[in-house]
């Protein structure tokens, strides 16, 4: 699972890198999404227990000894929420970009410096 963790961290860094180097706003948003994905990977990794299975108490898992068999369900529940919130934010951000593009016909973040100082 350490691999997933490292992967997640790497994705986060990649996301951040993209965020601060890509001028294109859509790419920035995608970078943020990548970083979020990295974080979600990390969350899943945190909830993982070596050799565990999905926390669904169906026939594959014995209801009584479930504790020893399943992974932590909480991070998974949290990830679910996080994903949905991420989707919402991304949708809204894209909407902003649509509107911004209509105003200035540019996707370059450096073109939107009307307010400063």
């Amino acid at each position, binding site marked *: *699972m*350490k691999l997933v*963790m*490292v992967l997640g*961290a790497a994705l*986060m*860094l990649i996301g*951040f*890198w993209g965020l*601060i*180097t890509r001028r294109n706003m859509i790419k920035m948003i995608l970078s943020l999404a990548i970083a979020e994905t990295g974080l979600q990977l*990390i969350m899943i*990794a*945190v*909830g*993982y*227990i*070596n050799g565990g299975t*999905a*926390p*669904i*108490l*169906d026939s594959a898992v014995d*209801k009584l000894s*479930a*504790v*020893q068999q*399943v992974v*932590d*369900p*909480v991070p*998974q*529940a949290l990830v*679910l*929420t996080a*994903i*949905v*919130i991420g*989707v*919402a*934010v991304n*949708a*809204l951000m*894209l*909407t*902003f970009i*649509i*509107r911004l593009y209509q105003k200035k016909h540019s996707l370059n973040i450096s073109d939107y410096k009307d307010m400063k100082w």
Partner: protein
Amino acid sequence: MVRKTIALALMSGLAFILAFILGDWSPMERLSGVAYDYVTRGAADLGAMNLVTAIVVTYRGLDTLGEVTVLFLAASGVAVLLRRKRDEAAATVKIKRAASEIVTTGASLLSPFIVMFGAYIFLNGHLSPGGGFQGGAVIASAVLLLFLAHPDYKLRHNVLNIIESFSGFTYVLVGLLGLFLAGGFLDNRFLPLGTYGTILSAGAIPLIYTLIGLKVGTELAGILENMKGRA
């Protein structure tokens, strides 16, 4: 160049921080804390096979309600932001090309099945992986497919709105029923828990997931439609 250098410096700093924090991380050996409780008593308490669902819908139901709210907010926000002012109508230029026949035919064929699959997912959320959000998203993908096939396709707003409002409001009502009839707000146990492992079990969870599924589906569809731009 300066910018890149600064960015590089920042990134190495961040990398150092992440490395510092996660450096000696190791996976948990066994469940502990609240997770232990969830796993040991979740099924008994709520009658849901899928523990994640149990947590999402009931134990941390307020989060889920919030999640729905967030999505609803985003949909409303998108709608507000992309609303058309009167003078903007003339300005929008149509550059829409009709989709190819393969796409249109495929879409017509597939979309009922996709919707049905979505419904399946949220209806079985307490039994198997899946749930309202996932189901809703699948339904919305059907709408997306329709949009791809028929760029001029119009959703029926009123119906969507009513479904959305109704499902959302009912969700809140169901929560309140939990408060009045059972242990607390969003308690699923005001309905009988039913037989463990069947579709009509786990109290109000299937009901809630259905409502969520409907709501998420309509909301995502709404977002898609708004972003597509109305013809």
